[in-house]
Every structure is written in structure tokens, then in C-alpha cells.
């Protein structure tokens, strides 16, 4: 509730700022009379580590609103990118994120915040960075509170950024004390379970019994450690070595954030009433690229007959692999059906065609007749198209989702670059006609866990060295780009950074002829035009 009220306040002040004219832009621009005194900032932000428990109460202009929100969005996208290469949150991971942040020219705030020992640096720049960090976090909350998927995306990446700052600032003891976390030091058990605790934790090197500090906490407070089996569990308690407590604090932050977002979601309509904020926020949410890809154009329906040709040239490897398994084994397990089926849906394959595809293939198996197919699989297909159950319009899987799928025995889904051994991969590359040097390059990238870059190279080798600039983020994007090249349409000049994603989308449309553009009349796109106009107006 508190957040909401404050959001409301921010928005009304924003409005005033807007009405008051664009000359009042410099709240953070150091114009002497406007800025808050440094001493006050230091009181407000004694450390670079912020739990974001209280919302900011400053007034900011709409342009600043956009600027700060975008910078943070870029930060989150950067973290998301690094995450695809590393599942662990260890020193190497943190160094990698910091390195990437410092390499980016457009993340000044976060370069400062992730410099070494940001807490000792009490310079103006650092204090302002803390403030922008605070404000921008809450701005993005507004943009990502609406749907479950958005919240999940936002929370995951915010928690990772929080972890990074926690790692840099290194003040575990103070935090435990300040936030009254339910940790009890377990001296006796530390001795009794010495071996088990040592065997469970990656970090510990000391073997002197009793020399290690171990905290006892209910396993539900240490889920990150439980998940990666990096903690000793006994009768419902996790025995957490001092070094791993950071992970537990991050989890606490996660649940706080998750709760606040659920609260915010219930009242988000109040923000929608604000004419000026609403388009901005909708815009941000759309710029969270990677989980969605360009929708098929009207009249572009794809038929089953076309699939085989497409699969050879234009399917990304993850989909080609599934497609080939259906052809060969006439079956796919649940998650494989979903990964491929939703990809087809976005391709423009209508439901009756999809039914035809699955039915004709599956019934080639001796143990599946049409009766069994309709009984066992039809519901599933209709569900994918939003015709059953809660009738949700399921979105096709992004690379991120595919890469992070859990894949078990009998499964063919997931990302081939991540979920295959080198040998079967090599075979597939040879089949695709990739020369030795290309195969070597791609396998090398796989080894380094750069799955999306590996996929991009695969694209290049199979498309005459044409590329997807800005990288592969979605199987359907891969497909669209491939079709554009193969049909001789102009190659899309892809995005380098997030802000340009929107432009890309429009550029890609502007390459199409005028009649086609006139025909595009469905609602979401029309709305896009509107917000775009607002964006254009606001640039100056």
C-alpha cells in the first residue's frame, strides 16, 4: 500500500514537472538550488547496497524517468545475457558481470556502483548513483508488475543485481543484525557434522573442527543453497557456513520484492489512469525483448506442407531437432510438443493445420490410432492455441526459456547447444554443410557456454554469412530473419542496444511495401504507433 501511495505521489509530481515545462529537467543535473544536499544524500544512502524497502519521494521529470528506467533496463538485459553463460553465482560470475558493465558506455550509474569498494567512495558521483539506483528500481517496478511472466523476469534479474552488490559491499554481519534474520550460530552441530558440512559446501577449505562459523536456519530460508545442493540439510535445518550466508540474504530480498510486486499489481490500474506515465510504462514493458518476437503478419498463414522446407533452411536447430524427431519417431514428449507447437503457432500455423501435423505423424506409430490421439493429445494442442482450460494465449518460448528448460531422459527439447554432447552436435553441423573451421568455432563457443552466440554462428554458416545483428534471442526471431534473407527481403538491421529494439521493429516494417503496411490493422500494432508518436514527441 505504501508503495502505491508513493507511486501515486511520484506520478503527480511527475505531472507537475511536465506541466512546469521541460526546463526543469535538472533535478539530478547539479543545478545548485535544485539538488539535495550531499549530506542528506549520505544519510539517505549510507551504503551502495539498497534493499529498496522504502520508495523514493523525489520529483523527477518525464525525461529523467525514461532515462533512468532505460539505463536500468539495459543493466538487467546485460545481466540476463551473462546469466546464459553461467548458472552459478560465484566469483567468476560476478567478475564477468562487472567487466561487462564497465565495458558498456551507456551504464554510467552502474559502473560507479560496481566499482571496487563503492561504500568507501563518498564522492558526489557515487551518492547520485545510489539515488538513481533507488529511483530506477522503483520505476521499473511500475513497468513489470502486471503479468506473472514480467514479474518473474524482473525479480530474477533484480535479485542477481542485488547479489552482485552484496558481494561487492561484503557486510553480511551488519545485515543479519539490521534485518533480524532468523539465523542461529550452531557451534555444537558445526563440530558434530563437520565432515558433512565440509562435503556440502564448495567454498570451505578449513578442516579444523570447530574453527568454522556455521549458522542454523530452516531450509526454507536457504532455498538457493538447497536448490544447488550446496548446503548440508538435517531434519529440516540447513547448516550454512558463514561464506554462504549472502545467498540466504539474497533470497530474503527476493521474497520481499516478490511480495511488494504482488501488492503493486493489485493497484497498478491507478498508474494506468495517468496519461503521461501509461504509454511510457507500456513502452518499457515491450522493450523487455527476448521473450517475445515479431508476430506473424496478417495473411501469412503457414501450412503443414511448407514446414518440411522451412525446417531444412529456416528452423533454428532446437526446432529442427524436434521436427526431425517427430518425423522419425512419430512421437515427442510433453515439453518437446510444447516447445515445437508454440513455435509453430507463432509461425502462423493455424490450429487445424497443427492438429493435422501432429495427428498424421503420431498415428504412424502402431500403438497410436486416431482415437487414442484425439483422446490423449488433441486437448493439449487445443490448449496451446488457447481453446481449452483457462484459454490463455501461450507465448512461444524464448531462447532464455529454452536454454533453461529442464531436460531429462527421453527428452529432445531444450537448446541443442546446451543440451547435447559434442558428438551428435558435430553430426548435425556436418549435415547442415558447415565446414570444419565453422564446426570448430561453434563447438568452441559451446564449450564456453555461449549458447546464443553459437546459435548465431550456426545461422551465419547456414545463411551465406548473413547475420542476425544483436544476436539470437528467440527461435521465432531466428526464423523470421532467416526467411527475410532467403526471400531476398532486406536484412533487418538488428538492434545493438535495447532502446533501438523498437526502432528495429519499425525499420523492419518500413522495408515492407506501403500496401502491406496499410493492411496491418490489428490492435496491438495500432497501439504501438500511438506510443511511438509519444516517444517521438518526447525526444525533444
Amino acid at each position, binding site marked *: 500500500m505504501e508503495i502505491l501511495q508513493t507511486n501515486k505521489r511520484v506520478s503527480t509530481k511527475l505531472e507537475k514537472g511536465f506541466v512546469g515545462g521541460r526546463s526543469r529537467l535538472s533535478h539530478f543535473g547539479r543545478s545548485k538550488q535544485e539538488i539535495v544536499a550531499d549530506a542528506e544524500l549520505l544519510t539517505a544512502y549510507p551504503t551502495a547496497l539498497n534493499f529498496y524497502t522504502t520508495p523514493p519521494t523525489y520529483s523527477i521529470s518525464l525525461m529523467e524517468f525514461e532515462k533512468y528506467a532505460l539505463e536500468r533496463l539495459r543493466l538487467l538485459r546485460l545481466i540476463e545475457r551473462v546469466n546464459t553463460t553461467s548458472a552459478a553465482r560465484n566469483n567468476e560470475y560476478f567478475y564477468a558481470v562487472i567487466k561487462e558493465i564497465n565495458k558498456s558506455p551507456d551504464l554510467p550509474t552502474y559502473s560507479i556502483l560496481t566499482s571496487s569498494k563503492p561504500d568507501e567512495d563518498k564522492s558526489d558521483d557515487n551518492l547520485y548513483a545510489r539515488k538513481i539506483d533507488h529511483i530506477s528500481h522503483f520505476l521499473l517496478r511500475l513497468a513489470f508488475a502486471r503479468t506473472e511472466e514480467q514479474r518473474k523476469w524482473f525479480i530474477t534479474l533484480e535479485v542477481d543485481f542485488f547479489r552482485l552488490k552484496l558481494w561487492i559491499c561484503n557486510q553480511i554481519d551488519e545485515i543479519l543484525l539490521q534485518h533480524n534474520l532468523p539465523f542461529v550460530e550452531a557451534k555444537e552441530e558445526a563440530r558434530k557434522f563437520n565432515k558433512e558440512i565440509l*562435503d556440502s559446501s564448495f567454498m570451505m577449505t578449513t578442516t579444523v573442527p570447530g574453527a568454522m562459523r556455521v549458522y542454523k536456519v530452516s531450509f526454507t530460508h536457504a532455498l538457493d543453497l*538447497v*536448490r544447488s545442493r550446496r548446503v548440508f540439510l538435517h*531434519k*529440516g535445518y540447513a547448516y550454512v557456513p558463514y561464506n554462504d550466508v549472502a545467498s540466504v540474504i539474497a533470497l530474503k530480498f527476493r521474497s520481499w520484492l516478490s511480495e511488494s510486486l504482488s501488492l503493486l499489481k493489485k493497484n497498478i490500474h491507478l498508474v494506468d489512469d495517468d496519461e503521461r506515465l501509461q504509454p511510457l510504462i507500456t513502452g518499457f514493458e515491450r522493450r523487455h525483448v527476448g521473450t517475445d518476437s515479431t508476430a506473424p503478419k496478417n495473411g501469412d498463414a503457414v501450412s503443414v506442407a511448407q514446414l518440411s522446407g522451412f525446417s531444412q533452411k529456416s528452423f533454428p536447430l532446437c526446432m529442427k531437432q524436434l521436427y526431425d524427431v517427430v518425423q522419425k519417431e512419430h512421437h515427442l514428449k510433453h515439453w518437446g510438443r510444447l516447445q515445437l507447437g508454440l513455435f509453430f503457432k507463432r509461425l502462423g500455423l493455424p490450429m487445424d493445420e497443427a492438429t493435422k501435423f501432429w495427428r498424421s505423424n503420431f498415428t504412424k506409430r502402431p500403438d497410436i490410432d486416431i482415437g487414442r490421439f484425439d483422446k490423449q493429445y488433441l486437448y493439449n494442442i487445443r490448449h496451446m492455441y488457447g481453446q481449452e482450460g*483457462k484459454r490463455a494465449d501461450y507465448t512461444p518460448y524464448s531462447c532464455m526459456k529454452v536454454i533453461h528448460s529442464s*531436460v531429462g*531422459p527421453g527428452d529432445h527439447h531444450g537448446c541443442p547447444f546446451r543440451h547435447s*554432447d559434442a558428438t551428435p552436435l558435430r553430426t548435425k553441423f556436418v549435415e547442415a554443410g558447415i565446414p570444419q573451421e565453422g564446426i570448430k568455432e561453434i563447438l568452441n563457443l559451446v564449450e564456453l557456454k555461449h549458447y546464443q552466440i553459437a546459435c548465431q554462428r550456426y545461422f551465419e554458416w547456414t545463411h551465406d554469412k548473413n547475420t542476425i545483428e544483436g544476436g539470437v534471442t528467440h527461435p521465432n526471431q531466428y526464423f523470421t530473419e532467416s526467411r527475410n534473407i532467403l526471400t531476398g527481403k532486406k536484412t533487418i538491421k538488428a538492434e545493438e542496444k535495447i532502446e533501438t529494439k523498437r526502432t528495429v521493429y519499425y525499420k523492419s516494417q518500413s522495408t515492407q511495401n506501403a500496401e502491406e503496411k496499410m493492411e496491418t490493422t490489428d490492435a496491438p500494432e495500432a497501439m504501438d504507433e500511438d506510443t511511438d508518436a509519444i516517444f517521438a514527441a518526447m525526444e525533444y
Partner: protein
Amino acid sequence: MGIQQVSFIFLETEFFSHREFSFSLAGDVYIRYQSFTSNEDFVAELKRRKPEKIDIGAVYNQKPKTRDTLIDFIPLQKEFVLDIDLTDYDDVRTCCQGAKVCEKCWKFIAVAVKIMDASLRDDFGFQNLMWVFSGRRGVHCWVCDKEAINLDSHSRAAILEYLTVIRGGENQAKKVKIPNVDKLHPFLSRSVGIIDDVFNEICRDDQSLLEKGDKNFEMLPEEVKAAVKDSEQRFNAVMTYINDNKKEKKTVRTALYELKLQLCFPRLDVNVSKDLNHLLKSPFCVHPKTGKVCVPFDPKKAFEFDTDAVPSITQLLNEINAFDKSQKSEGEPEQKETKTVVDFKKTSLPPYKNF
């Protein structure tokens, strides 16, 4: 008949009225979001609908039956459940495939039950566990501790990750990766200990794994494969090679543990466990395909559990009829008492009730 028994465990929760039940009716009709205000209400509906199968879902913030989908309708509580099914073992069983099950492949399930039961109790501290035979080729575990019922899906997913060891699809030969075999997590060392008791029996004697033509052989390190590739009895050759070299070579030590885990570690159907709103077949249901009753069993005696001995619906009917007949034949005066005997007690089911 049999119907009364379904309720005995679940009626005890005070949130019965917000609990989702789903019915599979004759002719492939599936109805979700049923809920009931009382035991009588529930039994009456069962008698009216005569479902072939009953699934149990979560306890929601509103009554599922009268839910208002426009306002938040969210699952709040649900037992933590595990679902283990032999179809997920097709790459390690050579005795049967698909829906089939025999006493040989049941041993995989028994190992799984032992490993999971030990971890849920010793690691997670749960005490109220009910293991149920699913009626065909698998088992379910219902963890009914208060702490378990209140877990959110994030926590459930974390537990599942902890309990999952085999990862990797059809394009990955090696599905278990142990980073450091000399610093093995206690959960893994305990699990390997349980597997050790039956490893040779299951993998060599029953399933002839690692022999010629078995894909699982591919998971072994090159040096092991090279050493034994011409052997007649490859399983034995592999084990001999490993035993001879495991002291000196860490790769070989690692391979031994990875092999045992990949071939015998439990394979869980994770999605059933992760989401609160996922449904799972009710205990004491009759499996629509086999006619067998989903009976609970003692996890300590998982190896002795005989799926063939589980009573089927036909058998139960015969038992009741036989019982009634025997009562009748003893003459009129006792007929009154017969009526007071619940159908359930006339059958071979009672011993299964006490777990």
C-alpha cells in the same frame, strides 16, 4: 463402494471445502474444480457422477466450485507430492517398456522409494509421508506435514532440484555430472549407499546393462570404454577395470559414482511436484486401465511390494459378494448384523490402510 474410504485422510483438513477435486467420468469427460462442503455432499456427488478416477488438487483461497475467475483465484496449500513412474526408466530397463511392469523393473521403483523416503525424512525433516502405488507402473508420495503443505511453488521447485541428479536429454550420453567425487554431498553418498545393495542385481543380472548394444555404455569415460570394448561380459569387465583403477585415478572413481547414479537414481516427474495447482490421483482410486486399487504401502518394505497382489476392482466385488453370501447362508437371524459391516471390511483391502 470403496468410495467411503477415499475421504478418510483428506477430510481431516479444515480446508476441505476449498479443496479442488477433479473427476474423470465415463467417455473421457474430465471435470475440474469440483469442491464440497461436507463429507455427505462429497459422497452424494460421487454416487451421482460415478467417476472412473478422482484427482486431488490444491486448497484455494475461494471454493473452487464457485470460484470467481475475475478476481484472484490462487492455490494456497497442498501436500508436497512426488510422482515416480517407470516410463521414465525406459533407457535403463530391458525387461519391459512403456506401460508394462514386472517384478524386475519394480526394483527401480523400490530403490527410488528408499532414496526419496530417506531424504524427505532425514534431510528435510518431514514425518508424515504416505507412499501409494499408483495402480499401474509407479508410485506417489504425499508429504502431509504442515510445513510441507504450506510450501510455495518456489520452495517446491528448490526441493525438486535438490532431489534431481539425472539431467540431460536424448542427445547427452552422460546425464550425471559429479564435480568432485572426493567431496560428495551427504545426500549423494547416502543414495549411492542404497543403490550399492542392489546395483549388481538390477543392472547386471536383471537388466543386462552395459552389454553389447546398450546405449548406457556410452556414458563411460574413453579409457574405460577402450579397456573393455572387446569383453564378452562387459558389465563385469567394466566393474573389474573400475575396481582396479579407482584408487589411483579420480576420473575412474568419478565414473563409478556417475554410473551408479545414472542407472539407478530416482527419476521424478517434477512438474507434478512444483506447481500447487497440479492434480494427482487420489489414493484408493481404481486405476482405469488395470482395475487395481491405488493402495498405500510401507516404504521400508518397498522391495517386497508385489504389484500382482494388489486387489483389483473385480476381486473386491467378488470378495464382497462372497462375504455377503457366507453371511446369508448362516441363516436369517444374523442378517441384521451383516448390514452393519462396511463393504470395505469384507475385502482384502484393510491391511493396506495402515500406513
